[in-house]
């Protein structure tokens, strides 16, 4: 029996759960001996003119070795906007010298012998700022009255698509239009950002940093600092979560390398949680307008989506996000007409980046909310409306109105599966009973059907690298260009290599995140790792067995075609002659048994699924309790159900959190209101029920494993299902829409308003 598809327990866990992994902050490395600690002085003002920065007192503080600000940084060009569609004027200075553009903008940095001395010294840097009006919302940004970058002449970083044609919904019996907020959230990885850098006598710099792809981070840092990439060695230690916000490098990482050169000593930086909540990229941040039109029999004829993407102060991945939202706007539906338009806008807030799903959850949230609004308007069951409009099953590529090419889909089957598993009819009956009784606690049933795109970088030449070597002692090493930070690649990649070679999982070491050893790699993001990196390992193991056959053929004086792998001995034997063979380890004694390979997938894959959520809403207080989350998540062939379920669990939890709890808030002046974990309510186990996971697996033809991505699916499906469930619970009271997060106060107020309107 193949090891693939079995619940191999994570080989990472004993270390992670006992003495702990080695995160960047934990590094003990000769190169970092005597490292100085960097503490950034950040703007406390969202938008303003810097009048003066006085570092003289800080220079005299205990333990301070150096203080740097803009005047010391004349050797670096500003960080370029970096995206072809964004005006070049929207670049970021390393140190704000004239203008600060968000609370968290870097003004100066102190280097101290000890870390604690840095916070004391930072308080002694005196910054005088003349406050300017702050642009806090996308609506403010669109007015173009206050400009973040006056030289650009606009706050619009990028614009996509045309306005909705005036006659777009002509002929529709029913049209519903609704503004929908997909709020800004913080990724909150358990490990905050961290970096350390040391220059060697050979003129090379070694940078250790917490990221999701060493190779991309290296390229970015080398580019920003104007360094020959050959002089940069980037190492990714263990990483405690990223959720997209650790893709590539942050300016602070490059600055640590610059500081180490400037100070002539190694430098280390580990941010604290408050710094993380304003300094690390945020996610989502879309103000949408959905419009949906069709006939009263439930057929949707046209769907339109307008996205105003909040990008924060400086362009990162923000301007790209709405393009993914637009691409996935048609979702799982056979709408005859789909229109999408987006504007990406600069605001005086923390920059927006990729966050678990990155643009696709926003597309699903919009269309799933629109369908419920349409269903409510025509008085039809939302499951029925969905079934009427879903694309019929297809197993040949389907090209959508927005140009996405879905590999395969069985959306109706996914919806039916989740409805069956949840006992949909009984739930509706229970809901009807409670409504009739006028119970204080009302039942809400929400659903979503989703399709997403994973491995979206496929076709852009990304591919993925893998190297496998068998050693004479019978162990093997796998090098991968992916960058695990919680996903379990050490286990899964070893399983894939073991399946081909017979080498036991516990004898296979998976190595990642060292640009000297692994020069090419795409990292871990966009749910790409298994379908690209795992497939590359599969290819490497296959090629290694072929290479071994060639070598063994000489030794055994047999035709390579007559040799077969014997998994029980991790060796090769002549077909029909048991025992007469040679192990891979023995072959490695003669000369290194090693292959390097690169896997290029035929295209991205389109995992899909359906979620059903049951909530109980206390109509007197507005508080929601999630009772059930039932999900179908089709990620193709599953290599390790334990790991796949872990991804689903984490994704669902983060999705529930966005629907109910999480929101990064700013006041009208751009001051962050959620810069500690006392104020930023991330979800915990006490707010979640046990999840009910339903299996469905449609293998993809895009890779030999048949695997599609699973990292983000849970988030994409659960957010709209929870959101719809909360509104469904109070729909009979006249409520049609409540923006996320559906806090108790918002739900209570929506009920109050609906009742007032009802009595008029």
């Amino acid at each position, binding site marked *: 029996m193949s090891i693939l598809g079995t619940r191999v327990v994570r080989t990472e866990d004993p270390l992670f759960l006992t003495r702990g992994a080695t995160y960047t902050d934990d590094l003990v490395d000769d190169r970092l001996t005597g490292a100085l600690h960097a503490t950034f002085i950040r703007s406390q003002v969202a938008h303003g003119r810097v009048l003066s920065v006085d570092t003289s007192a800080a220079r005299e503080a205990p333990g301070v070795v150096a203080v740097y600000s803009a005047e010391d940084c004349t050797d670096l060009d500003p960080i370029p906007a970096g995206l072809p569609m964004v005006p070049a004027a929207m670049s970021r200075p390393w140190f704000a010298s004239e203008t600060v553009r968000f609370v968290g903008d870097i003004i100066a940095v102190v280097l101290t012998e000890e870390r604690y001395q840095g916070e004391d010294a930072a308080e002694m840097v005196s910054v005088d700022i003349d406050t300017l009006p702050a642009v806090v919302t996308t609506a403010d940004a669109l007015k173009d009255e206050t400009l973040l970058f006056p030289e650009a002449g606009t706050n619009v970083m990028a614009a996509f698509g045309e306005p909705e044609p005036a006659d777009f919904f002509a002929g529709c019996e029913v049209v519903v239009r609704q503004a929908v907020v997909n709020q800004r959230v913080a990724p909150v990885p358990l490990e905050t950002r961290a970096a350390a850098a040391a220059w060697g006598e050979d003129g090379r710099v070694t940078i250790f940093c917490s990221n999701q792809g060493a190779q991309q981070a290296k390229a970015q840092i080398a580019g920003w600092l104007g360094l020959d990439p050959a002089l940069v060695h980037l190492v990714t230690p263990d990483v405690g979560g990223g959720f997209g916000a650790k893709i590539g490098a942050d300016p602070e990482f490059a600055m640590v390398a610059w500081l180490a050169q400037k100070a002539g000593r190694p430098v280390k930086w580990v941010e604290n949680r408050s*710094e993380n909540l304003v300094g690390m990229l945020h996610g989502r941040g879309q103000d949408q307008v959905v419009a949906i039109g069709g006939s009263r029999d439930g057929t949707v004829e046209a769907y339109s989506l307008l996205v105003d993407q909040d990008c924060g102060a400086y362009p990162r991945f923000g301007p790209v996000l709405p393009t993914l939202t637009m691409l996935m706007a048609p979702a799982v539906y056979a709408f005859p007409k789909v229109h999408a338009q987006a504007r990406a806008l600069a605001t005086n807030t923390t920059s927006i980046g990729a966050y678990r799903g990155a643009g696709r959850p926003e597309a699903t949230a919009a269309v799933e909310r629109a369908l419920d609004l349409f269903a409510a308007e025509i008085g039809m069951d939302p499951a029925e409306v969905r079934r009427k409009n879903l694309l019929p099953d297809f197993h040949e590529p389907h090209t959508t109105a927005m140009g996405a090419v879905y590999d395969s889909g069985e959306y109706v089957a996914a919806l039916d599966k989740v409805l069956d598993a949840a006992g949909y009819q009984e739930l509706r009956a229970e809901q009807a009973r409670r409504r009739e009784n006028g119970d204080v606690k009302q039942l809400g049933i929400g659903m979503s059907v989703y399709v997403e795109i994973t491995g979206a970088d496929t076709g852009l030449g990304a591919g993925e690298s893998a190297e496998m070597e068998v050693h004479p002692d019978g162990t093997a090493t796998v090098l991968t260009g992916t960058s695990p930070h919680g996903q379990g690649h050490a286990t899964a990649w070893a399983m894939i290599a073991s399946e081909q070679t017979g080498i036991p999982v516990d004898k296979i070491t998976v190595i990642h995140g060292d640009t000297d050893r692994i020069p090419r790699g795409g990292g871990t993001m966009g749910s790409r790792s298994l379908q690209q990196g795992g497939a590359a390992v599969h290819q490497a193991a296959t090629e290694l067995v072929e290479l071994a056959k060639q070598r063994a053929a000489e030794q055994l004086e047999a035709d390579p075609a007559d040799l077969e792998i014997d998994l029980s001995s991790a060796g090769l034997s002549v077909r029909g002659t048991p025992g007469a063979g040679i192990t891979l380890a023995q072959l490695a004694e003669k000369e290194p048994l090693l292959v390097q390979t690169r896997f290029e997938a035929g295209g991205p894959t389109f995992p899909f699924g359906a979620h059903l959520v049951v909530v109980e809403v206390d109509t007197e*207080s507005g508080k929601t309790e999630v009772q059930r989350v039932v999900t179908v998540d089709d990620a193709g062939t599953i290599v390790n159900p334990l790991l796949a379920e872990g991804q689903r669990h984490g994704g669902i939890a983060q999705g529930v959190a966005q629907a109910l*709890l999480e929101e990064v808030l700013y006041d009208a002046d751009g001051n962050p209101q959620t810069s500690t974990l006392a104020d930023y309510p991330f979800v915990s186990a006490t707010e979640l029920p046990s999840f009910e996971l339903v299996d469905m697996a449609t293998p993809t033809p895009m890779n030999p494993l048949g695997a599609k991505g699973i990292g983000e699916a849970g988030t994409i499906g659960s957010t709209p299902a929870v959101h719809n469930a909360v509104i469904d619970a109070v729909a009979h009271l006249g409520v049609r829409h409540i923006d996320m997060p559906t*806090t108790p106060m918002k739900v209570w*107020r929506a009920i109050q308003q609906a009742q007032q309107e009802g009595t008029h």
Partner: protein
Amino acid sequence: MIPGPFELVRATSVEDAIAALVEHGDDAKILAGGHSLLPLMKLRLAMPAYLVDISGIPGMSYVRVDGDEVAIGAGTRHHELEKDAVAAAEVPLLPYTASQVGDPQVRHRGTIGGTVAHSDPASDLPTALLALGGDVVVQGPEGRRTIPLTEFWLGFFETALAEDELIVEIRVPRTGSAGWAYEKFTRRANDWPIVAAAAVDGRVALANMAGSVVRATATEEALARGASIAEAAALADEGTSPGADMHADQEYRRHLARLLTRRALERAAGAASAAA
């Protein structure tokens, strides 16, 4: 997230701690469980020059019956109160409320004296204590004095405790089989209350409806003159001055105060009739 510089004084007796307070005046803060003070220090919202650690003083953690009252040592941790058999029998509102504080880590560190001294209006145990009524026993250089709980909390982070005084004991009446309830409204289980209502024996106290925990006096008066629970609870927010934050504006807080008071009174009445 690193506190400013401070010196740590490890007190070995109550007298020792008071001597340190006398010496350092308002440069000193008492450190008990540290779960309110240390976060403020890490955010540099508090920067005491001296921390007087009282966690090593023996004999500060106890729950015992003393006449008509239950006496609770100021150093009693929430977890100890939560699991205490005497408290469960004599004043069950307290161990239940203790079980609602934060999370297990907080309950294993935080102390009743610490939460009383901190005077955060969004605190669980002070709300329950105020509903119970009773006294705070404090000790200073001149000896001990007793401050009624109703006069102890003066406002946000403000109490009747003098600079050189230490809380040594909390005393509350034995409520026995009287009905009680603590209704805490949060978004997440481990949060501070957005609003909370404690009810026992016709008395009601509210969390987070003013600068400190407060009694719902209009409700209590209505109950005393025989009003129904619904009528009395509708007056719960009278005389309060709730603040507004991201969780709740004033109107919603007032609504919650009325709702939670009604629920607490109903639950207390149910418990009382079940016990009878």
